[in-house]
């Protein structure tokens, strides 16, 4: 019963209207760009009504390029289904660098719990309502978010010298 990306996108647009900011189907992973505050509702709809019971991947992204045409952050959600492997879709959100907040989906797909902690740890995205938004890969007292494009690693960490040539 797998649906085509077009049907999925139409279903989302019908239900959420203006909250779906952009739809791109002619690409490797067809996706909808969702308004950040509506993300949790869209995700719940995807799980319960569209049959996406499995969150394949959650990636935090810093979209700031070398020419600095944009300094947005973003989160990319790759949805899938088990056992129907051909039922795929993708959701994206774009967040401002000053206030990168998006509602959590950890209660919708428990696997997002750790993925969101990782996105917070490495990209610095705040997941509103997350049960335990702490660093997961870096040490608890680490400063900064390593996957930000403007990140510079600290010169010392607990007396250990860094950036020494």
């Amino acid at each position, binding site marked *: 019963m797998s649906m085509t990306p077009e049907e999925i996108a139409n279903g989302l647009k019908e239900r959420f209207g203006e909250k779906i900011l952009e739809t791109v189907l002619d*690409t*490797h*992973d067809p996706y909808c760009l969702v308004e950040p505050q509506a993300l949790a509702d869209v995700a719940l709809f995807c799980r319960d009504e569209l049959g996406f*019971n*499995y*969150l*394949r*991947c959650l*990636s*935090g*992204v*810093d979209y700031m*390029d070398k020419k600095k045409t944009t300094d947005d952050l973003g989160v*990319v959600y*790759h949805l899938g289904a*088990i*056992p129907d*492997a*051909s039922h795929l879709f*993708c959701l994206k959100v774009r967040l401002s660098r000053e206030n990168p907040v998006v509602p959590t989906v950890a209660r919708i*797909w*428990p*696997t997002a*719990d*750790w993925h969101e902690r990782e996105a917070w740890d*490495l990209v610095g995205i705040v997941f509103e309502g997350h049960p335990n938004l702490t*660093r*997961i*890969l*870096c*040490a608890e007292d680490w400063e900064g978010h*390593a*996957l930000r494009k403007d990140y510079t690693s600290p010169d010392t960490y607990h007396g250990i010298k860094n950036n020494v040539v």
Partner: protein
Amino acid sequence: MTDAAEIERIKDHGDVRSEEMLLNMGPQHPSTHGVFRVVIRSDGEIILDAESHIGYLHRCFEKICESVNYTKATPYTDRLDYLMAMGNNLGYALAVEKLLGVEVPERAQYIRVIVTELSRIASHLLAIGTYGMDIGAITPFLYCFRDREKILYILETICGQRLNYNYVRIGGVAYDVDDAMLKMTREFCDYFLPRVMEYNDLLTYNGIFLERTGNVGVLPADLAIAYGCTGPVLRGSGVKRDLRKDAPYAVYDRFDFEIPVGSGEAGTVGDCFDRYMVRMREMIESTKIIQQALDQIPEGDFKHPKVKLKPKVPAGDAYTAVENARGELGFYLIADGSDTAFRLKCRSPAFSNVSVLHEISRGAMVADMVAIIGSLDIVMGEIDR
């Protein structure tokens, strides 16, 4: 027996007040298979809750990939799941090739399948051997390592490395294979199939082993899917999901093989024994795939003639997933048209598999924690990245 009601019964028994204790397991512990720490909140011998702490091997693989070009990033993927480095190479190469839009020559596809499946057997052998040792059986470990050594020798003759191969490259493989290697692989397959019976005699149907793994760490199918578990952990819960069959890549659609799933032979579906047994049966299926690939392998190029050493990848983004020994290994690659990745996110299977640990260990005995962690078959290299 060990459900929440049972804990309540034990706690309320008589007028003796029970106290909770915090128990640190790891980061340096022989059965955590790497530097992995679990903080166990226990009531006597019963686990009330467990909290996993990861990150001890973190080296920010994803940041490294943003600073070196696509070809130079391949050796770093070796070090993710270092027990199945061929599979990581393959997943990464497929991710880049998807955006490059190249179709790899057939011979290279077959070589990729052969080395990946050899790697899968080697990885499962280590998982099974060390799992026996976790439970207290040392002999099977020696048998498993004896046969794993033969695989490592074959892979060493192909590419000169035993663990971190850097063999599957963007656009093909690094070197062609010769007839001597193919013959050696065929001999290994004939040798290996009867050995699986030997492991079964040694370990699988041993009474103590059955007692230690049956009905322990039961993972229901819906919980496994919700936590994003894949690979033998998910299949152990009775879910038939294997990307080699469901979304075939390379040339996996040309082979005839089964997907073993857990059926609760030693107790409940989704217990430690089922996860163990899925790995055992997968080794037979992998051997069958290798034998078919050896029969079908064509002559031809072993790498795409037009893929350069420093490819410039057209702008775009794509998620590519392969079925590794531990489950779905995914790479989400964003390219910006240069010779370096703009962003590479690695979705590692063991990361999601181990995130379910606190759910399935709740209510188990402390001694079973070792059995449960072993059955998840974690590799810290890819969890911490």
